[in-house]
């Protein structure tokens, strides 16, 4: 048990920190959140800088063009970029964290050559077409159909919760290539396709969330023709291919967010001291409790990352444990922020209030807390599935 970073890790951190200090002041101003093309350009520009500095695909295998960094280096990278206020991964999210690693693991040499370098260089944006209106928690029940027609699939259906769809070049798409029957369970019969977003028949409609923003979109597919060569993995084997992606797990998923939460907590305490609510012992102790909580979540992050490092990044289920606790803690953080703000908590122009709205999704997105508890209970604790 050791929490000290190795000399090599400290060097990595120092080099990164120096580079960030140098490069961040050179960045153009951040675009307005509603300016999609501007955001695409900004995010890709940042990715290009990472690429040129040797940080692109930090955690990707070297043979896929990545840096083959250890989980600990990845943790340091996320910690330092968050602390320095560097741009978020943004539009590069799906490419770098889902589609890319999937192609790296399951794609043909040709597919890897075609799709991986543009992700790393910041040339192409990917989005994700997994969820459907009727297939949320039960993702495998998805119904978007792909029918073989010569060397193409003809795809029809609809997807939801697709972020960056407006500006993506590619979509990693899950489609049903064999209908569900008594012999074919729903997890079989799914295939993974790379869909060019400019293909005829693709319609994107922004989806307004309760926070009033349109971070997500719905995507409608009307007889869209996708070359068979865009399929990664075997036909009907897309569920397994996808799970490789979803469980691409090094314990680092929430590193930046935990760092950000701790910064928010410090700011909340400062605000409470300023507006006098610090004298409310109940509120003050609630802030103290959150400080304990996020400190422990940071230690749990280090624990999970070290575990991933030991096992060589083998998929773990520790992520569910972390997410369950973290998503609740972060919602509690913003509820506490509302207490600190008092009546100002009703003012959307005040800091933290929009974050509070966004935080409502934490116990839902990427597997509801209910689903996560099932996963923990069944896969870690070995409790039986219900009838």
């Amino acid at each position, binding site marked *: 048990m050791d929490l000290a970073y190795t000399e090599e890790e400290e060097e990595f951190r120092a080099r990164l920190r120096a580079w960030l200090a140098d490069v961040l002041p050179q960045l153009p101003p951040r675009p307005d959140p509603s300016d999609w093309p501007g955001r695409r350009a900004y995010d890709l520009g940042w990715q290009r800088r990472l690429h040129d500095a040797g940080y692109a695909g930090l955690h990707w295998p070297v043979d896929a063009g990545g840096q083959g960094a250890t989980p600990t280096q990845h943790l340091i990278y996320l910690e330092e970029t968050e602390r320095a206020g560097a741009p978020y991964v943004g539009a590069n999210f799906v490419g770098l964290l889902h589609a890319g690693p999937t192609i790296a693991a399951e794609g043909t040499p040709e597919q890897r050559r075609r799709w991986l370098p543009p992700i790393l260089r910041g040339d192409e944006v990917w989005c994700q077409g997994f*969820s459907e209106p*009727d*297939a*949320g*928690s*039960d993702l495998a*029940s998805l119904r978007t159909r792909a029918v073989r027609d010569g060397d193409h699939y003809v795809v029809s259906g609809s997807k*939801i*919760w697709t972020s960056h769809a407006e500006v993506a070049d590619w979509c990693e798409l899950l489609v049903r290539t064999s209908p569900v029957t008594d012999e074919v369970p729903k997890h079989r019969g799914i295939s993974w396709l790379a869909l060019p977003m400019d293909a005829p028949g693709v319609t994107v409609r922004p*989806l*307004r*969330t*309760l926070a*009033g923003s349109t971070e997500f979109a719905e995507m409608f597919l009307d007889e869209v023709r996708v070359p068979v060569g865009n399929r990664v993995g075997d036909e009907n084997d897309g569920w397994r291919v996808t799970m490789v992606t979803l469980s691409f797990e090094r314990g680092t998923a929430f590193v930046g967010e935990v760092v950000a939460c701790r910064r928010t907590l410090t700011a909340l305490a400062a605000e409470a001291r300023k507006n006098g609510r610090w004298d*409310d012992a*109940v509120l003050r102790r609630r802030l103290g409790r959150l400080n304990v909580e996020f400190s422990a979540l940071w230690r749990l992050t280090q624990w999970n990352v070290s575990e991933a490092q030991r096992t060589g990044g083998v998929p773990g289920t520790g992520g569910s444990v972390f997410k369950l606790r973290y998503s609740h803690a972060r919602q509690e953080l913003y509820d506490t922020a*509302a207490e600190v703000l*008092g*009546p*100002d*908590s*009703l*003012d*959307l*122009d005040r800091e933290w*209030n929009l974050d509070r*709205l966004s935080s*409502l*999704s934490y*116990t*839902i*997105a990427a597997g*509801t*807390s*209910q689903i996560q*508890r099932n996963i923990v209970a069944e896969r870690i604790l070995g409790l039986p599935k219900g009838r």
Partner: protein
Amino acid sequence: MDFQLTEDQRALQSGVRELLAGRFGREALRALADGPEQPSLDRELWRELGAAGFFALRLPERDGGVGLGLPEAVLAFEEAGRALLPGPLVATHLAAGEVEGAATGDTVVTAVDSSGLVPWLDASDVVRGDAAGAVPTRSVDPLTPLHRAPAGVGAPDPLAVLLTAAEQLGSSARSCETAVRYARERSQFGQPIGAFQAVKHLCAQMLVRTEVARAAVYAAAVTADRAEISAAALLADEAAVQGARDCLQVHGGMGFTWEADVHLHLKRAWLRAALGPSAGAVEEEWAAAL
């Protein structure tokens, strides 16, 4: 002792519910929510409410009122809360008999809350309290324009607190019904999600919070006791806010969309909870009474 609704009270309850269903149903709600940034007040609806006695409910009949009491007012405001009816309903109701035209819905009255919040300032004809220097605020509730006045003064008005609690109660009950309906309709893993215990138990807890708040709010309406009103507000605030949160959780991703009504209940519940005494103040009040 007969702590149940009388026949007349049931009739009033269903009357208000039908009126609101007809004049402020889901389409009207969505038109406001999906419309331009600032919602506008429907003056015609306001006068219809006036004609139906919503504002004059507690005015003596000799003054042109309906001559009913607080319990009836609470039932009416519970329905308003269920329907998410917008506007400074509480302030106008409390102004009936004191401000010309409030009773009939011709005059829209708002008030400065003890916290300094002023809903619907621009749309109101009369402001009670000192709104000098009030600045507009980008309201978290899309259906309630807000101003902030320099620190509000005075203690919260118990009647306003009670009627607001009644609205919270209505919202809490509605969130529970909405969650249950969705849980019966939405299927995942081959069965309605309402068949899963995790969802079932969320819904059960929503009902429990609602029914406890109901007993507290109705009792406070009967006794008009100041402390009991504070307690009712505390419980109704919790029921409304947590109920909307749980409703959102039951809806999953769909609950996170603008298009679902869930968030409208949550945001209004947050707003109402910010009015009146804080939870801490109520707890201190009830601790001191021990």
